[in-house]
């Protein structure tokens, strides 16, 4: 397919399908993330990038034969490598015998929340997740450094007004329905954020959904209007505050005499401390993810208006 628009749409469908596959594999948290990220934000970002770089791919390709040879050799070797792997869905595979039983059997006493994925994510492997959040933050800053366009207040103002009237006239139905929907999406994001201890959900998913609401607003009402509603400096600050909150929880637990990110010492008894710690770091994750996604989208589409 040479039309990149079709390719991007296909990759969105692929994302949605893999999300439903994850549900079938019992990974509800992952499916949730993949549905909001793979099918939603990723498709959107690629579409924006495609509008910036041109829709058609050049037809010339150099030597697909060599690529095929490399691909087949690698694939053959990989399949040969799988012959020693444990069978699909066997409960005796090595992965299920080492750390997982501890998480499954003891997390209720140690952490006290039913969703094991959240307790592993936020508490047992909290340091790892801190690293991931920092990576997301860095990627957001990288996009900002690459694509940032200085906003010009006067021009933005007139553009905002003109887009506003245009939208008001042409897309009345879209506008009204979006206005009704956005509060629900925001509410849902908050529900996902704070319900993550008990069901599928958590800071990562909530952040993406929250960002999706703002991106929807920006798409229907125009970027300059959205810029006035969502202050860019504030969003950048929020991205940093999320990481800081996460690290700060770790430091506070150190000051209270525990290890870094050891929430047991945050409150009187260990389980309450764990609850508090997980709540705070999920909040930090949510802040960072949401604001990084908003930063990325705003800078991509800001480029488009600019050029």
């Amino acid at each position, binding site marked *: 397919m040479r039309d*990149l628009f079709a*390719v991007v749409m296909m*990759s969105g469908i*692929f994302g949605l399908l893999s999300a439903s596959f994850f549900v079938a*594999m*019992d*990974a509800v948290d992952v499916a949730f*993330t*993949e549905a909001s*990220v793979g099918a939603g934000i*990723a498709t959107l*970002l*690629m579409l924006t*990038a*495609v509008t*910036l*770089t*041109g829709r058609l*791919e*050049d037809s*010339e*390709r*150099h030597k697909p034969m*060599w*690529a095929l040879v*490399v691909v087949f050799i*690698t*694939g053959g070797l*990989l399949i040969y490598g*799988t*012959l020693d792997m444990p*069978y*699909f869905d*066997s*409960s005796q595979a090595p*992965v*299920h015998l080492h750390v*997982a039983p501890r*998480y499954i059997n003891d997390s209720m006493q140690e952490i006290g929340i*039913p*969703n*094991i*994925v959240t307790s*592993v994510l936020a508490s047992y*492997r909290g340091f790892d*997740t801190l690293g991931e959040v920092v*990576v*997301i933050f860095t990627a957001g800053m*990288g*996009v900002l450094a*690459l*694509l940032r366009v200085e906003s010009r207040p006067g021009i933005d103002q007139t553009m905002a007004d003109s887009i506003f009237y245009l939208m008001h006239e042409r897309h009345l139905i879209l506008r009204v329905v979006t206005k009704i929907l956005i509060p629900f999406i925001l509410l849902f994001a908050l529900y996902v954020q704070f319900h993550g201890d*008990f*069901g*599928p959900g958590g800071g*990562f998913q909530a952040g993406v959904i929250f960002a999706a609401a703002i991106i929807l607003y920006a798409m229907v009402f125009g970027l300059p209007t959205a810029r006035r509603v969502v202050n860019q400096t504030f969003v950048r600050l929020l991205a940093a505050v999320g990481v800081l909150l996460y690290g700060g929880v770790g430091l506070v637990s150190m000051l209270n005499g525990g290890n870094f990110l050891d929430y047991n010492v945050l409150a009187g008894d260990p389980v309450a401390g764990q609850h508090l710690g997980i709540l705070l770091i999920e909040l930090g994750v949510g802040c960072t993810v949401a604001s990084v996604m908003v930063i*990325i989208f705003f*800078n*991509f589409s800001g*480029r488009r208006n600019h050029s």
Partner: protein
Amino acid sequence: MILGLYNYWVVVVLMMIGLYIVIAHGNLIKKIIGLTIFQTAVFIFYISIAKVNGASAPILAEGISRYSNPLPHVLILTAIVVGIATVALGLALAVRINEAYGSVEEESVQNTDNQEC
């Protein structure tokens, strides 16, 4: 019994599709899409490893004793969001290349570079 390994084969096929796109296509955006396919194949690999026969989703509830392995879920959950952030960075680079060279085709970028030297 060798058919019990089919999940790995699906993953390998998907991975190779992604790899083929990355190698054989010159368009940078398409290369990034190939990378996301590769990425999703890795996600599927991890998640299919975590599956335990007859087990339920890893959310503790009464009356359920077998749960799928939560650890790969955690790794992939974070990897997905990190993946989109890095993909966005890659797309940003592609956009900047497009602005500097007027094209995102690998070959024409190379040609422009050669002429300048």
